[in-house]
């Protein structure tokens, strides 16, 4: 009986480090202001748990802009690109994670692309220079974007050591990412980043 209780207690002690707990990540710029739309991904040392694609993923074109500007989708997702503008679009990406072209499609037409590798996919339109957007294709279920307060939260992060990867479209670092380690039991983390000014949303077409 006593041996059984000891074994149960030992089991609990071993299980505790990998139990779920919340982890909050705050991202601020060099002047301490919160940074929104930074994408934070947690990779536990024991291995990331990929998320199964579910639901519909859409990046539309309206008023000569992509909507939304930033999307997070799991590896294996199919993303549709409906055009709601009166003009044709030619959506493309040269990113290593997904290189594709959707040649000229008109209003109320849509095209779909399958994203099968993790990474950041930068979108553009060959007709309208000013159009820009990003899709973060993730292989970890613990991926979130920062809100207006610069905060990304994981309510079910594993209580285990791991690695946080931060990406932002205008991050001034090689590769546009930053990383830091998280210890077992750590409940919060922070990044201080330097950002480039966003490119002006002006057309160079004439």
């Amino acid at each position, binding site marked *: 009986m006593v041996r059984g209780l000891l074994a149960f207690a030992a089991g609990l002690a071993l299980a505790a480090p990998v139990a779920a707990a919340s982890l909050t990540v705050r991202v601020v710029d060099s002047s301490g202001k919160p940074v929104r739309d930074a994408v934070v991904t947690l990779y536990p040392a024991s291995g990331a748990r990929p998320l199964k694609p579910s639901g519909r993923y859409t990046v539309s074109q309206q008023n000569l802009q992509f909507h939304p500007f930033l999307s997070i989708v799991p590896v294996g997702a199919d993303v549709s690109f409906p055009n709601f503008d009166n003009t044709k679009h*030619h959506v493309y990406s*040269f990113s290593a994670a997904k290189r594709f072209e959707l040649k000229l499609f008109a*209003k109320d037409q849509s095209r779909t692309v399958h994203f099968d590798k993790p990474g950041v996919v930068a979108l553009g339109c060959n007709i309208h220079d000013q159009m820009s957007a990003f899709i973060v294709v993730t292989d970890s279920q613990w991926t979130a974007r920062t809100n207006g307060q610069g905060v990304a939260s994981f309510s079910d992060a594993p209580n285990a050591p791991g690695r946080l990867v931060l990406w932002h479209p205008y991050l001034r670092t090689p590769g546009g990412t930053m990383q830091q380690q998280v210890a077992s039991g750590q409940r919060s983390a922070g990044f201080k980043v330097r950002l480039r000014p966003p490119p*002006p949303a*002006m057309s*160079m077409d*004439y």
Partner: protein
Amino acid sequence: MACAVRRLRIGSALPLGCALAALCPASAAASDLRLFTPDTLEVAGDLRLVAVNGEKSWLDRGFGKLRSGSDGDLRVHPELGNVDLVWQPQFTWSLSATIVGSLQGGERTQAGLSQAYLSLKPMRSASGTAFSARAGLMWPPVSLEHEGADWHVADSITPSAINSWIGEEVRPVAAEGTVAANLGASKLRATAALFAANDTAGTLLTFRGWALHDRTTLAFNRWPLPPLGEEFTGVQAPFTHPLIDLHPGFAHRPGFYAKLAFQPPAPVRIELFRYDNRANPEDVTNHLEWGWNTQFDNLGIVANLGGGAELKAQALQGRTRMGFVEEGRRWVDNRFRSAFVLLSKPFGPFGIAVRGEAFGTRNRGSWWDDEYDEHGWSAMVAAKRRFGPVTGLLELLHVSSESPAREHIGEAPSQRQTQLQAEMRMRW
């Protein structure tokens, strides 16, 4: 005249055909071919109510600077504005055409071909460098106020004096190439073109002066000139064809234009444009239309002021010469210039625009001298509201100018004119 136009029509067929062949990729994918699908057709048009005072319109062989004129009193009348049928067939995913037919109402109602050109836009390189080309009848990329395949005025009804002139007299048949590249966080776009059939550019600007209107020159159509005075009566035809090649052999004396646009890592774009039609000022047709050797430079600035507010400004100056040299000067040697600033701001479905501009000419010809110098200014305020495919616009425009050429018809050199227009613009 008919001979010159026929020469242009026949002569333009070969170079345009060559341009098409050069632009057409060898492997045209049949699946990309869209000739008459709904997305290749667009119709746009407007109806307007016009209240105007002041002098007779230039379209009625007067010196009035607006599309409509009066006999001094306030005149109110409904008018059909511009109706455009746009056809943009797609031959391959990168090769398309733009054909625009226009009907322009009011004084001297006319219909015809507004634009007809091929466009090539292949995929840019991974570095972001992009190449594109156009060939045919089109407006050179000068105006900051016009947009769309039908080249409509975006923020108001009436464009500035600069872009009114571009629409009426800068009408070449051109072959144009553009390269756009990213320079770090900055963007650069360079355009160069060779063109023909714009030998008379400068005729209206000299004999009539600057004007403000949204009439544009349709292929092979002509505009009336105001009474020319005794020097030019019997020397210059009382009309001008802006789209005409006077020099023997189509494009044997081509003109050129070039443009540089630069956007630093800030919401500002700066544009420089240079035009030279290289016309021979001593060429003349049997119908007394002369070559006008015309050059101009245009500086354009677009700035995004935040909240959707936008500033657009253009400054243009140039020179046009015509006729033979007498006493060391050509008959006409006209230096012209104009500048405007336009501010626009959207408020949901509403938008307002305000524009101020100045214009003038300085003449140093042996026949057309400084007695004919013109000076003027105008101010415009416009408001618009969108209702789905319909846009309502209200525009108040005042123009003041002094031009001694008005004395040819017994008018005072100094004139003022105010015009209020309400327009309903539709697009399908």
